[in-house]
Every structure is written in structure tokens, then in C-alpha cells.
């Protein structure tokens, strides 16, 4: 019998919970037990989220030694311990918690997005990416062959493919030149190892494939299938041989860090040496996902609901960061983006930003705002995490847990901000995941302090507008316009301008304009 330690997949539910809806007891359960029945008993239908959880637990228990439960969930009060001179808190979560290093790549696999592994050499970044390729049904050999290794001499032809030499000589037009496309372009899992060692010009070609999902050589186009991407970098700060172009960096959806190996788990490495096995070669067939299954996962993930309350928290958080009062004169242009596009000196412009409590204002902690792409990615991963946990709705905690990995490389801290000068906040200068989570917690605290959960007049007006304008009378429209104007007056009276207020005012201006246009249309009808 083959050494089967790596082939065992837990048959017990990976996320056990009592489901009241399914009251049908299955008599076949009598024969479900530890002993194999040779397929005699009909297997219970396995849902895709259960299958992905099986894959997760197989990876963390058998393949990648990552005993870091940094995505913490609690079903009740957790046990906490204060440790060391710095009085850091060690939490023992009371709910099922996960290792980001395995979970985020798996969610990337399920949603066909792009994940960057960062961390020092020899920490299993490439091995993890290969595992994802094997989960998609490719052999280890094919995955290895298709993996692109970044190096300083890498050309566009190395990356995408070559024109056939004979065609180059004989062709009368570009159309007659056939291209030998690289095999990796058609893979469902694409792996770029050490992407920050790819020269800038080749990075641009890679950007087209990553961003638009096609490759182009000599006017010939290769349409790539929908796929999950895994990139590795030894230095997430864009080091290596070449600076990573911003647009390429922006295409990466999540960044996960390979944490240090815990030598307490050395015995597991010893087993691999003694048995001469590599986990990526032992992936159980039952954990391999077909293309149709991944399509179905995509549909199920998108169907996960984001409750209004959770969406509002995300809105409130995101609205903290873009405002930069000295950045512009017209209301719409008072943003960090305006200042950045103008190439303004950051220190100078920040020094001009006076009047607000820079310690309290969360917007002062960052040098930029959150982009549309970032927000869409955040919502998608929050849905994916909720789905992975077997839920039909996103919880606030799901957003809180994925947010640092989505914004890791996107929301840049202003390390000169007063927040980072406070001694107890000094670790946030290096620990970006914790800083982003803290930022989200602070935003939530502010949301609750302002009582926006119960009293959100802008939300009420937005909801009213969302009902549609059909049948709204001229009188009612005027009343609503007055209401908006009064609300703007009340919101701005004697108050300093913070990010969330700035976005609320812009939203009110938008509503005012829509009602104004509607009013003009109504008048034209009579």
C-alpha cells in the first residue's frame, strides 16, 4: 500500500453546525464511520463550500505547515493572555479560525483572482502556488513547467511566445506569421515566480495578460481562459531587480505573507524526508476542482448577500481616506488624488492641512484613498469568505478579516502622521495587516460613536431616492430638495470637514442634482 498519510481527507463536516432547516434524518448515516465501505454506502452529496473547506484543511493539516491562525473568529468571549514587556495580547479564538497564508490563496483560487505571496526565501511560497495549480486539475509536472520564473533577461517573447522562424522569413504579411504561444497562457492557474525580477518592459506585457486576459504578439492575440493567478516576491516593497510598475501592482487582489516556520513542527518535515514525499504530488483526487465546479463556485460566491448594515460600514471606512482639504478649491477636487496627480510635495501639502484633529482623523494615516477596484475586490473576498464559512450573508467580521489582505499594498500609510508617532502605535509602522485591521476597528468605533447605525439621515434620503422617481409630484420633489438643503446646512454648521462628512455632502449634492433635473423635466411636461 502506498504511503497514504497525505491522501487522507477528513470526512467529517469541516464546519459543523446544527442546521435546523434540514430535519430529514438519513438512514444511510448508519454506515458512515471510520471504516471504508468500498463505496457501498451512497455518499452524501458534498457541497462546493464543503469541498473547498476539505481542501483547506487538507492543505493546513497535510501539505503546508502553517500553524498560524491569524484570521480569528469567535463564537463567544475568547481567552486572552498578555505577554511580554510590550504587553502584546495572545488570543485563543473561540470559533473556527484560519491561516491567512492558506485561506486567501484558496479564496483566490475559488474566485479566480490574483494573489501575491510575499516573504523570505524557502518559506513555501512557490510550493503553495503549485498546490493551487494541482487543485485545478493539472499535474505537478505541468504546473512546474508552466510556471514563469522572473529574471532580469526575461523578454516579451520569453513570456508570451515566439513567431515561428520559418514564417518570419516567408510571410508576406503579419497575418501569415504564426505564433508559438507559451503553454502557461492557457492554464487555469497561472504562476509567476519572483515577478519583481521581471524587467519593466516585460512587466507591461504581463500587465495586459493580467488586466485584460489576452496576450498580443505581432498583432496576433491569444485569449486566455479565466484563471487564478499566483505571484511570488521575496520583497513586497517592490525590490528585487526591477521596480514593479504601479499598474501591475494594482492588479493584484490580495497580498499574503509567508510567516516564519515554527521549529516545533520539525517532526512533520522529518516525515517528508524519511518517506520521500512532496505534498503537492499527493493531492487527493477528491479535492481536485473541475472547471465547471469553479464556475459554480463563482456563481455561489456572487450570490452571497451583503446586508445593508455591513455595506454601510464599508462605505464609512472607505470614505475616511480620500479627502485632502488643501488639495483643491472646488469641493470635488479636494482629494489626495488631485495632489498626487499634480506631483505636489506631500510634506508641504500635509503641513497646510490644519484645523482638524490629525490624531483622530483616520484619513491622516494614509497617503491615498481606496479605489473602486479595491472596494470591489474587498466585497468579493468578503463574500468568498462568508461562503467558505457556509454562510449566505457577509458578516462584519468577514470584511474585517479580509480587508488587510486586500488593502495591504493599496492603502499606503503616511508614516509621518501623528498616529505612528505614538509609542504604542510604533509596531503598526511595520505590521501592515494589524494596522489596516486597527484602522477598520477605529472606523467602526467612530461609526458607532456617531450613532450612524440608527440615525443616518443621508442613508434615509438615499433609500428614498432609490425607490425611484415615478409618480413623485412637483410638490414632493421640492420638499425633498428643501430637506436636502436643510440637511447640508445642519451637517456643515460649525463642523470640521472629515472624510465621511465630505462623502455625505457629495452624495447630498448628487441627490440634489438628480431632483433638480427631475423637477426641470416635470415642469417641461406640464
Amino acid at each position, binding site marked *: 500500500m502506498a*504511503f497514504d498519510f497525505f491522501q487522507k481527507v477528513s470526512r467529517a463536516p469541516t464546519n459543523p453546525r446544527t442546521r435546523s432547516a434540514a430535519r430529514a434524518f438519513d*438512514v*444511510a448515516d448508519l*454506515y*458512515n464511520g471510520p471504516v471504508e465501505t468500498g463505496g457501498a454506502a451512497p455518499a452524501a452529496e458534498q457541497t462546493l463550500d464543503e469541498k473547498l473547506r476539505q481542501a483547506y484543511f487538507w492543505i493546513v493539516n497535510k501539505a503546508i505547515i502553517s500553524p498560524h491562525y491569524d484570521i480569528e473568529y469567535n463564537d463567544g468571549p475568547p481567552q486572552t493572555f498578555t505577554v511580554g514587556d510590550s504587553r502584546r495580547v495572545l488570543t485563543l479564538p473561540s470559533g473556527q479560525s484560519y491561516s491567512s497564508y492558506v485561506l486567501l490563496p484558496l479564496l483566490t483560487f475559488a474566485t479566480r483572482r490574483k494573489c501575491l505571496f510575499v516573504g523570505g526565501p524557502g518559506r513555501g511560497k512557490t510550493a503553495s502556488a503549485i498546490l493551487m495549480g494541482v487543485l485545478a486539475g493539472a499535474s505537478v509536472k505541468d504546473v512546474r513547467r508552466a510556471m514563469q520564473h522572473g529574471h532580469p533577461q526575461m523578454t516579451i517573447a520569453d513570456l508570451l511566445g515566439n513567431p515561428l522562424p520559418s514564417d518570419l522569413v516567408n510571410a508576406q504579411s503579419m497575418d501569415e506569421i504564426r505564433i508559438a504561444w507559451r503553454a502557461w497562457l492557457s492554464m487555469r492557474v497561472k504562476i509567476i515566480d519572483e515577478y519583481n525580477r521581471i524587467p519593466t518592459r516585460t512587466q507591461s506585457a504581463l500587465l495586459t495578460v493580467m488586466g485584460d486576459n489576452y496576450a498580443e504578439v505581432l498583432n496576433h492575440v491569444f485569449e486566455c481562459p479565466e484563471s487564478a493567478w499566483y505571484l511570488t516576491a521575496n520583497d513586497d516593497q517592490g525590490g528585487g531587480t526591477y521596480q514593479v510598475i504601479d499598474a501591475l501592482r494594482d492588479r493584484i487582489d490580495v497580498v499574503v505573507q509567508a510567516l516564519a516556520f515554527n521549529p516545533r513542527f520539525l517532526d512533520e518535515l522529518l516525515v517528508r524526508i524519511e518517506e520521500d514525499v512532496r505534498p503537492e504530488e499527493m493531492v487527493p483526487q477528491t479535492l481536485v476542482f473541475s472547471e465547471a465546479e469553479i464556475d459554480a463556485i463563482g456563481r455561489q460566491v456572487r450570490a452571497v448577500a451583503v446586508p445593508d448594515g455591513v455595506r454601510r460600514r464599508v462605505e464609512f471606512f472607505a470614505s475616511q481616506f480620500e479627502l485632502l482639504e488643501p488639495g483643491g478649491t472646488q469641493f470635488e477636487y479636494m482629494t489626495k488624488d488631485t495632489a498626487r496627480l499634480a506631483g505636489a510635495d506631500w510634506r508641504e501639502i500635509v503641513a497646510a492641512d490644519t484645523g482638524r484633529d490629525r490624531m483622530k482623523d483616520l484619513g491622516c494615516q494614509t497617503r491615498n484613498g481606496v479605489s473602486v477596484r479595491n472596494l470591489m475586490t474587498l466585497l468579493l473576498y468578503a463574500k468568498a469568505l462568508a461562503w467558505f464559512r457556509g454562510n449566505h450573508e457577509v458578516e462584519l467580521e468577514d470584511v474585517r478579516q479580509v480587508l488587510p489582505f486586500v488593502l495591504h499594498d493599496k492603502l499606503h500609510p503616511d508614516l509621518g502622521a501623528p498616529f505612528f508617532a505614538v509609542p504604542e502605535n510604533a509596531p503598526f509602522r511595520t505590521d501592515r495587516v494589524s494596522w489596516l485591521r486597527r484602522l477598520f476597528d477605529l472606523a467602526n468605533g467612530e461609526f458607532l460613536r456617531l450613532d450612524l447605525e440608527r440615525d443616518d439621515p443621508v442613508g434615509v434620503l438615499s433609500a428614498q431616492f432609490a425607490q425611484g422617481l415615478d409618480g413623485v409630484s412637483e410638490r414632493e420633489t421640492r420638499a425633498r430638495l428643501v430637506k436636502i438643503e436643510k440637511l447640508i446646512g445642519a451637517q456643515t454648521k460649525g463642523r470640521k470637514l472629515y472624510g465621511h462628512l465630505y462623502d455625505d455632502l457629495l452624495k447630498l449634492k448628487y441627490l440634489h442634482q438628480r431632483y433638480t433635473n427631475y423637477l426641470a423635466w416635470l415642469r417641461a411636461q406640464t
Partner: protein
Amino acid sequence: MMPTVFAEVLAARRADYNGRMHAARQRYPRLAQDVFLGFLHSHVGPLAETVDALAPLRVAGVVDACYDAALELVGRALVGPAAAGSALRDSWRDVMPRFAGLLAGHPAEVVGLLSNAALYLAAIPGTRCGQWNQEMIAASASIGTLAQLRAAGQINAWRAGAAHFRAGALAACTTLPEALALALLHAPPGVPLDEVMRQMAADPWWHGLDVHGCREREIGAFSGFGGQFGAPPEVRAADDGFLVRARDRAFFLVADAYGAVLRPSSIEEFGLAPPNNGDVCVNATTVAVTAPTTHAIRLVAA
């Protein structure tokens, strides 16, 4: 002394079996070698001898399946000094040899079905594993196929107290020859299967002449004494059973003529059920009685 045929099979595939043992120890670090060898000697050896008498060419396949199953069971400490109860051992010793013919043809399936069933029933408080073994032994002469074995096991599990299997077991009856189904149900003589099924479907407390059935059951005890409830339970009626809450845990209670079983539920589901006034709670077929001074629930046919 190890039975000869068994010893021959082990010797012939020594390297392979040693490899399996090695792999199993990686998976189950607590796997006790002496317990495993003892189980092979006391349970697998006699089975090999029994099969040898019927189908000598199938012995190796039976030993193969038994060896793997034994590794799994010993590795999980389901047999040996740490095991709770003797249901599994009894099943291997008393029931499995009665199905030697089926075992020869489908070794992995039969070993798996009988082992898992014994473990499943032993894990449900109040079920009668001994009765299940006896009924399976009694029916063994009439069971000729794997499908019949599976269905008979399910029907007997229900009759041995797994009340939540009621619907599935009744459905299994329809897959069996009528005589076998009537025998398994201990139906009154001369009553056709359709009639028995109709009665059973209409009244969960109907049991004909079956001595294992009765019209009342009791379930529940203080968790400090090994029971299920940490506090006197509160009961609410549901469509096909009762919802029970004791402290921060909730259960779904299913009861019929053959037993009463608690399955996990949620506090939310309990909260959705209409509250009950007093200690007596009634649904369409059953009266449930409890009191603030007891951890038990008495169930009586309505």
C-alpha cells in the same frame, strides 16, 4: 496460536502489511501494536478460518479488508483498553461470521457496514446494540445480497432504538422481499406488508406483536451522571418531534415505539417553536412530560 490459514496469508504478504502498519502509525501516533496484534488474533483470525471453510480462494481478500479496517479501528482507539463498550468487538465476533458468504464476495463492504453500524449505534444513548446484533444474526440466513444486508441493518437499527431512522427504515422495507421484511418487523402472522406499513406510517407507536416495541419511552439524565442535560429540560412541540432546551444547548427529540433519540438543534430553532404552558407538551402523536425537578422526559403515545 494463530490460525494456520490466517498465518499463511500474513506471511505471504508480510512486507505489504508491514508497510500498511508503518503508514498507519504516521497517521495514528497512538496506534498500539500489541492491541492491534491481539485484535488480529482474536477477531480476524477466526473470520479468516470461517471464510476458508466456505471460499478458500477469497481468504486473502477478506484478510486484506479486515487488516485495513483493524488498523483504522485500533488507530482510533475504538478497540482495545481505551474503547468505550464492546459493541464493535461483539459485531466482529458474533455478527460478521454469520455473513461469511457475503464477506467472501464483498469483504471491504461487509466489514465496513457492520463495523460502522456498531459504532454508530453505540454512540447513541439508549440504543440497544445487543438487540441489533441478535436480530442481525437471526436474519442472516435470509439475507443473500449486500443490498439486503444494508436494508436489514437499517431496519434493525431503527427497531433497536434509533427512532430518527423510522422513515428511512420503512422505505428500506419496500426494497426487501416481503417475507424478509415481515420477519424483520416481527409483523403479526397473516398480515400483509402493505397493512403493516400503513399502520406504522399512521401511528409511530404501533408495533404489532413486536416485543421490542412499547407505547411509552423515557429519555434524558443529568449530564453530571453521563446524561444529556445540564439542567432540567424545557420541551416544546414540533411537527414531527419535540424541541428540547437545557441550559445553552438545544436538541430535537424523536420518539416512537422503538426508542427516543436526541439530535442536535439550535437555540434559535427552539426559540421559534411556540412556548409550552406547564410540564406537559403534546404533538400530533405523542405526549411529553417533564418537570423542573427532573432531567428526564417521559414520552407516551397520545
